[in-house]
């Protein structure tokens, strides 16, 4: 029911360290926004400012039509799920769930009905009379989720809620959370979500849009597909996608991209997209788009191969730089590996040219 807007949001810790550098972010009503980035890029700081747990140095946070900068967390109509669950250790699950309602003086009968409802949705009915220390990690996280859900908040905030769980549980919780989000939307009370993670699988599978952050700056905000297909800069290109995008440094001369002694001729597919021609450039190409070829193409020296089942990751040295390419298992078997040399042809339709100085992707069609 509420749109969340951050404008020129800044955070300075202890009067000296600037953790968040005036970011702008607009999360639509009912949107699932994922904040992702390497450790220390101020994801948590941003989230905690939205929650009201951290003071805002400057800028504005709007939820719906209210500016919430000066409101305490309890009045912002938000709910938060913490990484380590943060359940109240001395209260039974039931009281944990109902604590917020109790503070809001919701009548007892209503509170109990709400607890039952949430417990049913999250399948934690048998756990209601346990203490948090008697729960497994997955159960505790469901209770924490329930504690957020029961308040019917306008904005849900998650700070790496799944990172304490094992891989399998994480996958099932991921589905549970996205299902819940869809279900609330279907029930006509769409909830806005800001979800912090450093796991790109979580980001790519859960987010309607993803906000990639680095050192307190926003690098790009886009849908998962767009981030993958059209990364705005070198950082996003390297951060999203696995195996990582190959970034090959070189120089542009006319329509040639020169790297060491080898040349890639940039064709129309790239040239038409480029809105600048930096001298010092880098060619970005995903491993999936580096094809093994028979006769021509770039020459690289094969170093190792990782067998992944239906495909093989080949690690090779191209002009002193390690690159990766993906080959089908059959293709790999058919490969002539006698002299360690392989030939690679980049699929230029999927290539990106980056300006090495600014890191910007100059081969993106300009917005519009």
């Amino acid at each position, binding site marked *: 029911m509420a749109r969340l807007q951050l404008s020129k949001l800044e955070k300075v810790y202890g009067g000296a360290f600037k953790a968040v550098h005036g970011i702008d972010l607009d999360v639509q009503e009912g949107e699932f926004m994922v904040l992702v980035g390497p450790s220390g890029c101020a994801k948590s700081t941003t989230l905690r400012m939205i929650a009201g747990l951290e003071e805002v140095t400057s800028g504005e946070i709007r939820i719906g039509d209210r500016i919430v900068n000066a409101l305490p967390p309890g009045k912002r109509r938000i*709910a938060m799920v*913490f990484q380590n669950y*943060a359940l*109240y*250790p001395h209260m039974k699950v039931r009281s944990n769930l109902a604590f*917020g309602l109790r*503070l809001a003086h919701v009548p007892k009968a209503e509170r109990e009905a709400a607890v039952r409802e949430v417990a049913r949705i999250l399948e934690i009915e048998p756990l209601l009379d346990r203490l948090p220390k008697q729960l497994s990690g997955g159960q505790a996280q469901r209770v924490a989720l329930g504690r957020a859900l029961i308040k019917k908040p306008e904005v849900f905030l998650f700070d790496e809620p799944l990172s304490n769980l094992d891989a399998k549980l994480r996958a099932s919780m991921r589905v549970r959370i996205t299902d819940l989000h869809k279900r609330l939307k279907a029930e006509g009370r769409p909830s806005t979500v800001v979800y912090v993670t450093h796991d790109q699988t979580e980001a790519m599978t859960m987010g309607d849009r993803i906000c990639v952050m680095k050192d307190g700056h926003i690098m790009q905000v886009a849908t998962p597909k767009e981030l993958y297909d059209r990364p705005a800069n070198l950082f996003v290109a390297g951060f999203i996608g696995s195996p990582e995008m190959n970034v090959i440094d070189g120089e542009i001369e006319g329509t040639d991209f020169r790297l060491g002694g080898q040349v890639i001729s940039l064709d129309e597919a790239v040239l038409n997209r480029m809105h600048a021609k930096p001298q010092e450039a880098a060619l970005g190409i995903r491993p999936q788009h580096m094809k093994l070829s028979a006769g021509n193409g770039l020459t690289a020296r094969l170093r190792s191969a990782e067998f992944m089942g239906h495909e093989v990751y080949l690690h090779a040295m191209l002009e002193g730089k390690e690159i990766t390419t993906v080959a089908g298992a059959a293709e790999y078997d058919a490969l002539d590996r006698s002299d360690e040399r392989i030939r690679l042809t980049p699929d230029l339709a999927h290539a990106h040219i980056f300006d090495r100085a600014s890191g910007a992707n100059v081969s993106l069609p300009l917005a519009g």
Partner: protein
Amino acid sequence: MTDISHASDVITAGADGLAEARAANARQIRNAKISAAVRYIILFGVGLMMLYPLIWLVGASFKTNAEIFANPGFVPQEPTTEGYVKGWETSTPYTFGRFFLNSFLIIIPKVIGTAISCTMVAYGFARFDFPLKKLLFGSVIAILLLPNVVTRIPQYLLFRDLGWLDSFLPLWVPSAFAGDAFFVFMLVQFLRAIPGDMEEAARVDGANSWQTLVFIVVPMLAPALISVCLFQFMWTMNDFLGPLIYISSVDKYPVSLALKLSIDTTEAFEWNRILAMSVLTITPALIVFFMAQKYFIEGLSAGGVKG
């Protein structure tokens, strides 16, 4: 054929190895038992040595006056409760019960005041930022290091001017304002070891600082608070100097002063009465301690976990 005989070699070799391992294991178990026995004997001996005065005290309180100095053992030859009966009556118009009542009148408000005020102050120091926080916390530590006697005289003058002499107020009031720096320090350390996430969750749930303190922090702080109450209980029960300085009328004496009274007023000391009353005096502290022992130790050790 060769293969088979080879295999059986391996099996016998394996069996030998197993027998050897079993013997070594048995040896280890035996050694562990011996060293455990030695350890317990030593511990028991030292424990007995430390407890001896206490045991002697209890034994002697059942002896006759004459026997106390005649017989060094702690088992009374003719057990008598005369010491208790006479001691209880005291040489004053009041029975010892009156002094116990006074002690509790001092202790209970003091313990409650300490628990409440120290929790609030510690919560403030551990969880909030405010101007001069470092300086103020530094002064708490400084008070901790300051010898008590230094403040006796100014405190006495202050309470005299307030007209509080010969009342319990000088004993209650400082504690009700977190005057015991040690407890503040202990609770701050304990709080620092508790992650703040639960309190943040409570704030997101809509709790203000007071509600967070009462509903979330205090329950988590319970083991430390129990230690604080126990310490305060025992120290106040045993406090001699405080009441001696501020309380002058006998009808307000706590047990610690009353004991001294029985030594002062009797010419030929009735040692068995004094000892009997001493036993009664330490009983409440012992009972409370043993009842709360579990929490007490929990509170002390958890406070010691990294700051």
